[in-house]
């Protein structure tokens, strides 16, 4: 328990009749970069506000460095927040904003000045001390907000979609910078985003949220390669979800069939019974499309190429399966020999498919 810097224990929270958080538990190690990933309205921001102390949970506890801070006011917690809209004080200069927490602590002037200039150096805004917030660009405001939060040397830094308002190029740049900053400072980051790419790029661990609950908590690789539920598989890297019935189960693989044909999936754990319904996730880049010709004896799912689109360096081929479902295959490069109307057999390497939505797939509610 002492190994964790921040722990949430079965947090519940309602606003009026709406239950926003339904028993969240999370343990964060010192120096970790953990991302809460989920669509808007899933309760990410509320979770963050509860950690900051800006909301009180209805049930459950918040521990900081092993100490119960559930009922502590925000100003008594060694946690700082970078707000979604930056929340810079419009009537103070950049220097005034950054030094605010230090002035509250009544540090002497020389110390404050030194800390402010170090913070500005950290976010590469040296020389901006006397600017007012309305004289800054979006990216600069973002940096000031970060400097203001880290100058206080918090144990945990909370970031609420800090890059949401920036354009794509600046986002990419700030992602790298934030990661560098986190490494450099060694502060624990709790980061909120709805952008799965951002989460995969930056995090040590990702907690995928859905409807006030964690679906899966794990490293980016775990979440990406071994999603536990179809929701996670679809949300992180938009995998294809295929349903079927198991009919041949051995130690390492499960063969299943549905109206479109048969598929094979690797089995890592759990008991699959013959005749059990299974759900399988396969990423679009792992889907192989085999053109049907006279001497083909490939087994897989039957389908017809429906559409080809090219976006962001990826060619996407949409296949209509014989059972009426659709799936997407993607390739790097601009073209493939397949054209709409071609009959194909869909296959994949068993190791690239994952069984999801098994019993007990959800995160347990205790620590």
């Amino acid at each position, binding site marked *: 328990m002492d190994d964790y810097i921040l722990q949430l224990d079965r947090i519940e929270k309602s606003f009026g009749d709406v239950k926003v958080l339904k028993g969240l538990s999370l343990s964060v190690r010192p120096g970790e970069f953990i991302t809460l990933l989920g669509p808007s309205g899933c309760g990410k921001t509320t979770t963050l506000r509860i950690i*900051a*102390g*800006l909301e009180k949970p209805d049930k459950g506890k918040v521990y900081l460095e092993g100490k119960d801070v559930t009922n502590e*006011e*925000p*100003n008594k917690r060694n*946690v*700082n*927040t970078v*707000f*979604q*809209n*930056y*929340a*810079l*004080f*419009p*009537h103070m200069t950049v220097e005034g904003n950054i030094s*605010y*927490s230090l002035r*509250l*602590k009544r540090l002497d002037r020389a110390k404050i000045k030194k800390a402010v200039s170090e913070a500005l150096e950290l976010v590469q805004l040296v020389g901006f001390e006397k600017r007012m*917030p*309305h004289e800054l660009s979006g990216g600069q*405001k973002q940096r000031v907000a970060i400097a*203001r*939060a880290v100058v*206080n040397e918090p144990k945990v830094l909370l970031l609420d979609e800090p890059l949401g*308002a920036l354009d794509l190029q600046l986002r990419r740049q700030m992602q790298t910078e934030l990661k560098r900053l986190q490494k450099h400072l060694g502060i624990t980051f709790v980061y909120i985003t709805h952008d799965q790419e951002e989460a995969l790029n930056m995090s040590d661990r990702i907690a995928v949220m859905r409807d006030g609950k964690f679906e899966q908590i794990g490293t980016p690789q775990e979440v990406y390669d071994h999603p536990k539920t179809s929701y996670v598989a679809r949300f992180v890297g938009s995998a294809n979800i295929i349903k079927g019935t198991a009919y041949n189960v051995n130690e390492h693989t499960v063969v299943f069939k549905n109206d479109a044909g048969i598929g094979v999936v690797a089995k890592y754990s759990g008991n699959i019974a013959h005749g059990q319904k299974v759900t399988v996730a396969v990423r679009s880049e792992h889907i192989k499309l085999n053109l049907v010709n006279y001497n083909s004896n490939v087994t897989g799912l039957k389908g017809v190429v429906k559409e080809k689109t090219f976006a962001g360096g990826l060619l996407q081929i949409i296949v209509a399966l014989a059972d009426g479902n659709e799936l997407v295959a993607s390739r790097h490069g601009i073209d493939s020999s397949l054209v709409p109307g071609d009959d194909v057999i869909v296959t994949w390497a068993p190791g690239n498919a994952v069984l999801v939505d098994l019993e007990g797939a959800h995160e347990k509610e205790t620590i």
Partner: protein
Amino acid sequence: MKNNTKLANFYLGLILVLMYLPIIIVIIYSFNSSRISSVWGGFSLKWYEELLRDKSMFDAMANSLILASSSSILAAIIGTLAAVGMPKVNLRSKGVIEYISTLPIMIPEIILGMVFLTYFSLIRLPFGMITLVIAHTSFCIPYVYMLVKARLVGIDKSLVEAAKDLGASEIRAFFDITLPLILPAILSGMLLSFAMSLDDVVISIFVTGVNTNTLPIKIYTQLKTGVTPKINALSTLMLGATLLICLLSVWIGKLGSHHREDLKMEGN
């Protein structure tokens, strides 16, 4: 098309003349050397000199200034507290309370005056400066309340949360963040109150005592005994003072406005 603009300009001119001609005439006649108001006897400053010699006028002016400053300051404090505190009140009757607190603006002054008169005699409060200050404060509060409330709506509530997050207590966050941001609204509400109090006749007549004259009451009673151009001179001076206050209030309002734009931008 051209005809239309001509018509519009004519209309504008007419309205402006209707509104400001009487004022201009008073200003011009305050420099009239003739005793009879309607006859122009040449330029003179003698009415201003006479005004300066009139001690009772000065007493009345002093009273008015004391009254206007104390009631506008009191209204600023009470109105601001109300506007800041109201969002934190969690009552079902909140809407009703909010409505009632702005009502004095809509109630006819003559009725307000009557009400104050009855009430003060009921509780046996001696009429004089105290009753004047209470009455003026209460009709000034809504102006401050409404201006400050409007300003508060435009302030992102995450600013106060950010201050608390950075280590400020609730009270500290109010003084460091909220107060500086609503200060322009408080000041313009206060100046508006000052102007309203300075020229109030109706309510003042009801609640003043025999020995306390305010400037508007003094002017009003003098009118009954015959208009001397001295009144014109006095009116001109008061006009100047009121204009100054209005300009000051606009200027203060502008001072705060870039913050507001900034808040909106950040909100997006």
